[in-house]
Structure formats: C-alpha cells, structure tokens
C-alpha cells in the first residue's frame, strides 16, 4: 500500500473535529431552535399577560362607583335618638337551633323560638330550660297561665309551662306557615305567612275567621309577604295590628276582618321602613305605642300609637356582626330578621339571631320621648 493511498485514512479523523460536520451542525441547530422556542413562548406569554392586564385595567376603570352597592350612610344612627340601653344579655342555647322569634310572657319569662325547639329564659335569674321539638318553631306566644304556643309549618303545638307538649292543632289550610302569634282572651290570632292571612282561632284550635284576604269591596288590599316575616298583635284599643311588609305598613283590623287604618312608609331614612319587606316584626306597649324591627338595616325603633317615629331602641351599630356580614354579602346575612318583644314592665327584649343572643333593653333615665 502506497503513502498516497493511506492519506485519506489520516485526514478523516481530523475532519470529524471541525464544526462543519453534520452532528455538530444538528446540535447547534437544536440549541438555537430551543432557545428561539423558549424566547417565542416567553414573548407569547408576555403578550397574553399584557393584553389581559390591559383589558382588565380598562374594564376596572370602566366599572366606577356606580357599580358599587353602598348603604353605609344608612348604617349609622344619631345617638341622640337612642331611648334605651342594654341592661343584660343572655345567650341562645345551641339546642334551640337557629333563632327565629321571641315572646315575652304576660306573667314573666321570655321564650326564644328556634329551628331546634324552644328556650325559656327567666329574667329574674330563675332556672331556664330548652325543649327540643320535632320541627322548626317559627312563632311563639305565651298565655297568662304560662302555657306556650309554638307555631310550626302546618301546625301549632300547645306546651305547658315546663315545655311538655299537651296538644297539637293541625286543622289548617295547605301551606300554613305561622310566623307571628298573639293571645287575646281565649282566642289566638295567627299570622300565616304561607297564605298571607291572619287566622282567628279559638282556644281549642278551631279556625273562626280569616282576616286580610284581598277584597277590594271591603277596602282590603291584601298582605304582601315576600319572605317569611309576618306578625300580628292585639293592641290595647281592641284592634289587631298586622304587618304588611311588602307595603311597608302596619295595618289595623277589627277581629271580624274590617280594615280600619294603616301607617308606615318606605324609606331608608330612620323614620321609614327600609328595603322591600319591612318591618319584619313588632310589639305593642301598654300605652299603644310600638316597637318595630327591620332586616337589611338592623334597626329596632319606636313609634307612638299613631305611627309617628319617636326614637330608637337600637341602631345598626348595635348589630356589628350583622352589618359586617350584610356588607360583605355573605350568605348567612341573607334573610335574617331581628325580633323584639315588650315585657310586662315595659322593657324591650331583642333577639339578635346572628349574634345568638337576647338583650334586655331598659329605657334610659334621661330619655325624654
């Protein structure tokens, strides 16, 4: 073999090391492609991000103050309007469930209705009790004898003073949902939110009359009850007072169902009833004046017997958890009412369902109205 014939064998290894060979070229191209790809992806992501941020910024700018629901100016009350102050507070027992209503007995004692049962509180410091019942209690009333009437969906139970069920009345129309009750003599008046009427019931549970059915011929407009807040009380003048929450009024009827008068107006201002369905509950003092409760803006207010606003028992500031939840829009604030009852001494007991407490409110020494 000559020297010329062996030259290519000697040259080939040197050629493999030059950058122009196929493997090196592919490697370089792959690196370049990878870097270009990463760069491209980064550029695309940056473009998308910038576009999204730009779009968001422009839309946020477009959503101005007019898109915010703000009632904060109504959530402050004038302290000079406060006529009552808190004297005592009792917790609602867990066994009573979610609190739904309250009653002060003519012979003393406070009853809290809940979806778990009934809680009896003795303001004099005596022993209270909790009685769990088979279904949620929407309304409660107390007889002078100490018996307790509890309103359930479809029926009314009669409990003795110790909480034992003695009778159940269930002969009521379909959809019966008692959300307010009052005892007058031997009769019971029941606000049925399910059928938007007041039932007049005798002492054995028999329905004697229906009050408030829409009847233009008798000048009865009918009750507007958008949510289960509907209350009835007998006033010292012998006329029933019934909430018409959708009309923002308290209306007066005879026990035979004749419409007599009404007062109340829709307004977020403290003198009126706010929202779409207020007042949610009320009670009547011995002199015929009223204590009313509202939801949405939790306010407990005072009106004279003619319906003129006279002051506050408690303003929204007294229910900070309620106001905070309502402003935050949390679901537990939806549809939560405040309830009040007048006890035989003229004090007001207020049920705060969200705070799960009952407050004894006493008239301020300096209150002039």
């Amino acid at each position, binding site marked *: 073999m000559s020297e010329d014939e062996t030259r290519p064998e000697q040259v080939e290894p040197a050629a493999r090391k030059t950058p122009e060979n196929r493997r090196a070229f592919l490697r370089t191209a792959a690196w370049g492609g990878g870097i270009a790809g990463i760069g491209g992806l980064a550029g695309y992501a940056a473009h998308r991000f910038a576009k999204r941020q730009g779009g968001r910024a422009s839309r946020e700018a477009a959503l101005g103050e007019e898109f*915010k629901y703000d009632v904060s100016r109504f959530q402050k009350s004038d302290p000079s309007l406060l006529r009552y102050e808190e004297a005592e507070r009792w917790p609602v027992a867990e066994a009573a469930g979610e609190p739904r209503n309250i009653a002060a007995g003519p012979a003393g004692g406070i009853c809290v209705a809940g979806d778990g049962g009934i809680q009896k509180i003795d303001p004099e410091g005596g022993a209270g009790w909790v009685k769990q019942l088979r279904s949620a209690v929407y309304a409660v009333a107390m007889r002078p004898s100490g018996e307790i009437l509890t309103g359930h969906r479809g029926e009314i139970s009669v409990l003795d003073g110790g909480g034992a069920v003695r009778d159940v009345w269930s002969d009521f129309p379909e959809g019966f949902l008692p959300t307010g009750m009052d005892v007058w003599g031997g009769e019971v008046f029941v606000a049925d939110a399910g059928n938007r009427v007041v039932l007049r019931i005798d002492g054995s549970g028999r329905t004697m009359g229906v009050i408030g059915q829409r009847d233009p011929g008798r000048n009865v407009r009918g009750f507007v009850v*958008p949510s289960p807040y509907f209350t009835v009380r007998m006033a010292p003048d012998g006329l029933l007072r019934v909430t018409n929450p959708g009309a923002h009024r308290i209306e007066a009827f005879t026990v035979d169902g004749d419409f007599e008068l009404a007062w109340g107006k829709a307004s977020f201002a403290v003198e009126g009833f706010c929202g779409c369905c207020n007042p949610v509950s009320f009670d009547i003092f011995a002199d015929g004046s009223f204590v009313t409760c509202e939801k949405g803006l939790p306010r407990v207010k005072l009106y004279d017997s003619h319906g003129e606003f006279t002051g506050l028992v408690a303003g929204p500031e007294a229910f900070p958890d309620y106001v905070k939840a309502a402003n935050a829009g949390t679901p537990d604030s939806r549809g939560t009412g405040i309830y009040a009852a007048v006890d035989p001494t003229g004090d007001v007991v207020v049920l705060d369902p969200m705070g799960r407490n009952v407050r004894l409110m006493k008239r301020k020494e300096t209150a002039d109205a």
Partner: protein
Amino acid sequence: MPENGGKLTRRGLLHSGMRGAGLLGFGGAAGFLAGREERSRTVWQIDPDKCIQCGLCATECVLEVSAVKCVHSHGMCGYCELCTGYFEPEPIALDEGAENQLCPTGAIERAFVEDPYYEYRIKEDLCVGCGKCVKGCNMFGNGSLYLQVRHDRCIDCNVCAIATACPSQAFRRVPATEPYLLRGKGDGEK
C-alpha cells in the same frame, strides 16, 4: 394471511383472528372512553350560596363582556313594588325612570302585573355580571336575584380567570349535563 401456496394455515388463522379481535377491542375501548368522557365533561358555574357579589365576575372574564349574568328565580321572587334589586336605596319615585334604577346598565326590566305586584326580568345583552342588583336583593329581599355563568357565552377555559380571582371560592366545576346551580323552585328562571 394464507401461506403454503394460498392455503389457510392454523398460524395464519390465529394471526388474522388476533388482529381482528385487537381491532374490535380497540374500537370498543375508544367508544367506551368517548361515552365516559361525555358523561364526565364538566363546566364552570357559580354556587349562589357562596357568592359575595364582589364584582370580579364583571372584570375578570376573558371575554369582552363577561359570561356571568344575573338570573332571576321567579318562583322565589316577591314581585315587590319596591324591589331593592331594581331601585336605588332612596329612589325619587317608584317608577322606571333611569334615575331610580339601581342597575348602571339598565339591564333589569320592570313590568306591572296587578296591584301591587311587579315582574322583573333580566336583559342579558345589557347585564355585565357586576352583581350590584344581587347585593341589593340579598341584603333586603329574599335572594331571588343571583349570578350564574351563562353557557351560551362561556368558552369554558380550562383555567377560568374569574374562578382564579374569586375571593369566596364560589366557582366550581359542575357536570355539563346539569350546568346551572339554580335557586328556588327553578320555574321560570331568567
């Protein structure tokens, strides 16, 4: 495949049989998976019991106008004359004047039914999903107005921008066969 001069051999028969069975199994599996995929397909929706009406539905959606709209449960609605989802907190008058309406885009229509009841309907082409009316209804009413992702508009992003931003984790995947989380009786929604 025939072997030995075109005659069908045992090996050939087995070979062909196995290939056929394999193809049949592959087809069956593909059909099964396709069916299962359809059943398990999910879409985005808002749980109205978690929604806090923060307003981000209007601003976070990748669409120019959000796919989130207010819907109305007519079965729950009180048909109130004074609707807090429709009227400003202190309206000048209880009428349809623009100055009395709460909705900044005029997306709620009010119509007289009979004394004293009024019906409220959402005009979806105007609704931007800000939730202002929902807040008014929840705070003072019974919550018959609420927000939902409308699936005739939603492009069902794999990672929903609103769901990512939602402060109350109200967005969740629901079966595509039941794409709405309706409140109330569900009759006459929208």
